[in-house]
């Protein structure tokens, strides 16, 4: 028993020492360089405060964000701590439920933002933020961060999904012109196929998100064939998922992607798409094994090093045409910043993110598309980003947000993706659409 007593004493002494160390300390002061703090004066001084930010972007994307707001952080004294997580969508819920919510989160899906807004976890935007949002973005864009009439966040990043990547040289060599209508697009497709090259390439493998490029395709075609109103009704489930008009759009996509004559250029049979990652899907365009690849503006970063982007360079993109040359339907996506806290420093950071200054500063660092009206497309990092921003700012554009990102996650991030993969693997349109309709949560 002597040993027991000694052990107990030792343990208690140890505890006393450790707990006496007290609360954790913040990190030390950062090295300061000369920065012009003038533009940041309006955000006030918040020395010694910290704002935690949580988002899906990692690595280079995360670095670019941090570099962009470094001056803001230095001038206001706010220690902005960014944490990127490839599984943001699943973990944000665990963190919020576990009482470990970040101050600011970057939501890549309006549906996810809405879930947390409805659960009263997000803080409504301040009057100042709402004013900035109104000045910077169209009512459509602010609508995606608005739940029951209350604004909860602001758009941070935008992208245009309705692009078709192609090789200008390939088109020139075969005397093909960039199509302006859907039927011209089909003509180009047929001509390329007749010359012995599969015109389209695609890849949908993306981990647990496998299938998303296909859902984008279907949304794009539905938007073109039926117009924005039917599209909205479909997204909000006012018409069933397996409505005949939706089936028609799927069949149109199927006539291209499920057709072994038209796809999968450079990768073999159409059903090889399930094994090809979305990152590598468009690369057969470079050697001319495939003519066209429908993918978002952010695909610019997936080309091999040294690939130049431009109307007379290695690759470029055109807008997936509508039924006629006058209509301009654009499908896109975006990321929204919303806050779980309303401390003054969090408000200040949110307001900074909502300015055109932030978007401009971020654009200077590398490829970036913003839907902010105060941003000049001429400053874009590459011609496709420029085209994307011009489209977003053009009043004739009929913009619609990626439907699967707005549907309930069980459908938009589950049944729709899985169903699309089954569909490309051979299941019938009817069968797949019916099963997705059944998966729609009733409550």
């Amino acid at each position, binding site marked *: *028993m002597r040993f*027991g*007593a000694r*052990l*107990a004493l030792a*343990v*208690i002494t*140890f*505890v006393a020492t*450790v*707990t006496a*160390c007290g609360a*954790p*300390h913040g*990190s030390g002061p950062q090295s300061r360089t000369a920065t012009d703090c003038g533009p940041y004066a309006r955000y006030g001084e918040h020395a010694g405060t910290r704002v935690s930010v949580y988002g899906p972007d*990692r690595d280079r994307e995360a670095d670019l964000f941090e570099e962009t707001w470094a001056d803001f952080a230095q001038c206001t004294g706010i220690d902005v701590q960014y*944490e*990127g997580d490839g599984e943001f*969508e*699943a*973990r944000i*819920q*665990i963190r919020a439920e576990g009482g470990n919510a970040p101050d600011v989160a970057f939501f890549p899906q309006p549906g996810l933002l809405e*879930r947390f807004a409805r*659960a009263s976890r997000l803080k409504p935007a301040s009057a100042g933020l709402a004013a900035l949002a109104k000045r910077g973005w169209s009512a459509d864009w602010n609508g995606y961060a608005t739940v029951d009439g209350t604004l909860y966040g602001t758009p941070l990043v935008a992208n245009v999904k309705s692009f078709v990547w192609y090789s200008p040289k390939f088109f020139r060599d075969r005397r093909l012109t960039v199509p302006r209508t859907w039927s011209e697009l089909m003509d180009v497709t047929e001509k390329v196929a007749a010359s012995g090259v599969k015109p389209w390439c695609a890849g949908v493998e993306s*981990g*647990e*998100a*496998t*299938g998303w490029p296909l859902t984008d395709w279907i949304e794009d075609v539905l938007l073109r064939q039926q117009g924005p109103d039917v599209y909205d009704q479909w997204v909000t489930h006012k018409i069933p998922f397996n409505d005949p008009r939706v089936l028609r759009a799927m069949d149109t996509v199927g006539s291209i992607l499920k057709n072994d004559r038209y796809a999968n250029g*450079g*990768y*073999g*049979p159409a*059903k*090889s798409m*399930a*094994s090809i990652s979305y990152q590598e899907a468009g690369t057969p365009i470079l050697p001319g094994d495939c003519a066209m690849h429908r993918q978002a503006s952010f695909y610019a970063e997936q080309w091999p090093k040294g690939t130049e982007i431009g109307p007379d360079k290695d690759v470029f993109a055109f807008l997936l045409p509508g039924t006629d040359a006058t209509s301009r339907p654009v499908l896109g996506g975006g990321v929204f910043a919303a806050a779980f806290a309303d401390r003054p420093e969090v408000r200040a950071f949110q307001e900074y993110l909502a300015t055109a200054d932030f978007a401009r500063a971020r654009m200077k660092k590398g490829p970036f598309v913003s839907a902010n009206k105060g941003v000049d497309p001429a400053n874009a990092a590459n011609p496709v980003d420029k085209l994307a921003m011009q489209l977003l700012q053009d009043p004739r554009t009929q913009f619609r947000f990626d439907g699967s990102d707005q549907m*309930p*996650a*069980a459908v938009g*991030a*589950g*049944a729709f*993706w*899985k169903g699309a*993969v*089954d569909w490309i*693997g051979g299941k019938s349109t009817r069968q797949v659409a019916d*099963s997705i309709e*059944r*998966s729609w*949560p009733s*409550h």
Partner: protein
Amino acid sequence: MSFDVVAQQPKLLYLLQGIAAFTAVVGLILVALHRGPIRRRGAAALLLAPALLLLAVGLLRPGLRTLMLSFTDGEGDSWVGLDNYVWILTDPQALTALRNTLTWVVLVPVLTTVVGLLYAAAVVRSRFRALALSLLLLPMVISFVGAGLVWKFVYAYRPAGADQIGLLNQLVVALGGQPQQWLVDSPWNVLFLIVTMVWTQAGFAAVLLAGAIAGVPREMTEAARLDGASPRQIFWRITLPSIRPTLLVVVLAELIATFKAFDVVKTMTGGQFDTGVLAYEMYDQAFRYGQTGRGAALAVLLFVLVTPVVVYQVRAQRGAR
């Protein structure tokens, strides 16, 4: 992202404080026990208290809450009765997960044990026994996530004519076949995932079984040999019955591990192409789709399925004593 000790300092400190507080409680109990006359029953209660407390806080309470949640809707705030359980038994995706889990549970323990047993029997009398067993044990050192990634590369698909990057397809092509999408084509893809699981687990089985085989008294096998038994007869009639308790432990441990299989599925297919299993479906529903009720119902089902195995294992151990 690298682990930054400085940035993680607060968390580490909290952790340290937690451990310290726990140790303090235990220390106080030891001190209390040290003094005064000890009544055995009181002492037992006191000694059990910390463990019981932790079990109540860390297991019982969350367990009951999960059970409660399984009768509620997606947000976990209104009652839906047995709807979530009905959903499990009617939804095609949930049924696929159930069917796959059944396949896993039947195949993994059997294959792992058979492979492990054959290997153990082959190497147990060999001079290179330690080396041979270590080799098979190596995959177990790799995490399931690592194993999943390794095998994902083995199964990688490239079209015919292109350079194959997957080992399996390279072999198929070298033998004059067409490359296959191993992880995509259902239902065979489930078997390819199971191979990964068996690969990671066979070493564990082999080491335990080799130990057991080595423990079979030499007199018995020698006597059998003198009586004219063939090696095969010795294996079936002497070795196998002698190592029965160990075999049981291996099968049951594998059974429980297989019910919880998650990492391999997540890294290799993300539950796509009809490869989902119960544990993965539970994660999808609860965390990715925000369907807390369904996720909880799946968790309860998993618990109900594993419980008999655990009860049997405890009983078997008690019986062995």
